[in-house]
């Protein structure tokens, strides 16, 4: 699946390893099960480590380790499954995670702006119309927002109003 980051398609430096596969020397993404099984060994590697969570998995048992990961991949099996949005929110807000958060799976083009606002910064998507829309830059969504979100820079703050209410991009 093509990888989209910062407004363009880019090549992917990460390799996703099966649980039994020997990791290469470069940046590698492992499952939660593999991480829990081989935590110390994986953290001792001299290369960036990524984590991929399947839908339904959460941060239980790895809360203390989240900041060790350079990237966390959240899987979207169906575009209707909105759990990853809350997980991304928690990573940014609760765990101060500043690495890459990648959405992987089924995303409609109309969801792109939601994902970016929720804290994702890269998309690895399967939906062909979405890929075409990303390539054409046609994924802006509605530019005015009524909620605070992970991508807020807090640049506007009208007197007396909720500081995040009148943000427009």
């Amino acid at each position, binding site marked *: 699946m093509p990888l989209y980051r910062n407004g363009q398609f880019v090549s992917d430096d990460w390799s996703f390893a099966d649980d039994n596969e020997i990791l290469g020397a470069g940046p590698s993404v492992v499952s939660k099960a593999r991480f829990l099984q081989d935590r110390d060994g994986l953290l001792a590697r001299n290369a960036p480590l990524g984590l991929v969570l399947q839908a339904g998995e959460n941060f239980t048992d790895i809360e203390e380790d989240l900041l060790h990961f350079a990237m966390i991949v959240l899987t979207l099996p169906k575009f209707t499954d909105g759990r990853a949005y809350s997980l991304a929110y928690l990573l940014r807000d609760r765990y101060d995670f500043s690495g890459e958060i990648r959405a992987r799976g089924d995303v409609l083009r109309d969801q792109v702006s939601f994902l970016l606002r929720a804290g994702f910064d890269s998309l690895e998507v399967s939906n062909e119309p979405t890929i075409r829309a990303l390539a054409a830059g046609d994924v802006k969504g509605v530019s005015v927002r*009524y909620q605070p979100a992970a991508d807020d820079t807090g640049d506007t703050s009208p007197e007396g109003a909720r*500081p*995040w209410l009148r943000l427009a991009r």
Partner: protein
Amino acid sequence: MYRYDEFDHRFVMERTKEFAGQVTRRLSGELSEEQFRPLRLMNGVYLQLHAYMLRIAIPYGTLSSRQLRKLADIARRYDRDYGHFTTRQNLQFNWIKLADMPAILAELAEVEMHAIQTSGNCIRNVTADHFAGAAADEIADPRPWAEIIRQWSSLHPEFSFLPRKFKVAVTGAAKDRAAIQVHDIGLELKRNDKGENGFAVWVGGGQGRTPMIAKKLTDFLPESDILAYCDAILRVYNLEGRRDNKYKARIKILVHEMGEEEMRAAVEKEFAAIRGKTLTVPAPEIARINAYFAPPAYQLCDPATPVFVAAQAADSQFRMFAERNVTPHKQPGYGVLTISLKPVGGPPGDATSSQMDRIADLAERYGHDEIRVSHEQNLVLPHVRLDDLPAIHASLIEGGLATANAGLITDIIACPGLDYCTLANARSIPVAQRISERFADIARQRDIGDLKLKISGCINACGHHHVGHIGILGVDRKGEEFYQITLGGSGDETCAIGEIAGRGFSSDEIVGAVETVVDTYLKLRQTPQEDFLAAYRRLGSAPFQEALYVA
């Protein structure tokens, strides 16, 4: 009323443009119906039995006359000259062409209206007490909070793909007219002994195939914390709510499976992490939104209301209308007027274009330009001078809108049923029509007194049958429509789910069965003041079941 500023206008215009693009992609074939479905649902467009249906948001049921005229105009030009007001205080058009949708939404945007989040698995249009800002028994106005929650929930990036739909209702009176205990979140705005406003927060109520009464998670939450608390509830639900079975995906099932204590603990834990941060609503912002809902400039009136009193003495038809359809207002000399959309033999909740125009005219002339949609599918003029009521009544008679049955047995809630809906198992509207014809005699209705009869054409319970004093549920039995009766339900502050009386009745039998229930009540009530619900609660189901099935 709330008025859009430049920001709100831009939001709706951009969204309308985005949806117009989606419709174009669907019409061109780029989007399949399956791909288009979630997009159209987020914009209030359903595919029904015969046509696309457009559900327009009427935030907390509040309309200006200009907006109501626009709805009438759309009905006239794009639909079959009528609209249907729903139990969620919205308006549905049933016969819209998909190609017309962008034009209709653009016209709605001109009058600060849209169809955003009237469907889909997101936070739906927020509802509130239809007598808000007017009722004599109100403690604080729920509309500013409904508006604040509406804004916060509009295209929420985190909560637009929830396990299932999510409905929020707000009331500001101890007398619950918004059915908050059968909502995903129900909020009761109240005041503590220090004079501060706050909310009792109920979670996990709902109807549908598994009716549940909500649990009260907290009895008093400071008002400025409400968005943070809702955010906490939504996050727990979004992460933990079931996604394996759409019939078990509502938050009521999560609350039921977790248990009240564990749910409260999970919400409180999340709330503790976000409390006092960006979602706190600052006092100046509360004041800014409240200012939109300031009371209208009441006109001077003689508190003795001589015209109103004289008309009641002279005209018994008017007196009966005033007794049933006028509710006490907080301002002396004023009343809250319910305009019934339940004429004898008519489909509940429908209004023609000319009726909408007439009501808009009346609101403009006599009603401080405000109209409300009630969840009981009626329209309300919240602020009218009692002395103007005889003139209003005369106009309503001309428009076929003077039915004096508010709160009586023919003031029926009914879902669209099998006449329109793809989900339905049975027709609802014809049953409502036949019941209202059977009980057409207004003297008999008045003798029966307060009685809420609610009809759903399937187990999804859009007609609120679970909380009807008498509820009727349409079911399909081997291709034939059957109707189950439930008894003793209530959607108010004494919320209760009705109990199934027994086996269902055929379409031919159901009206007679309702009559049997009513006659049993009339026979057994202690006094004419003991209403149906009170009598049922005293007597239990046995005498009614005996009358229905044994006698």
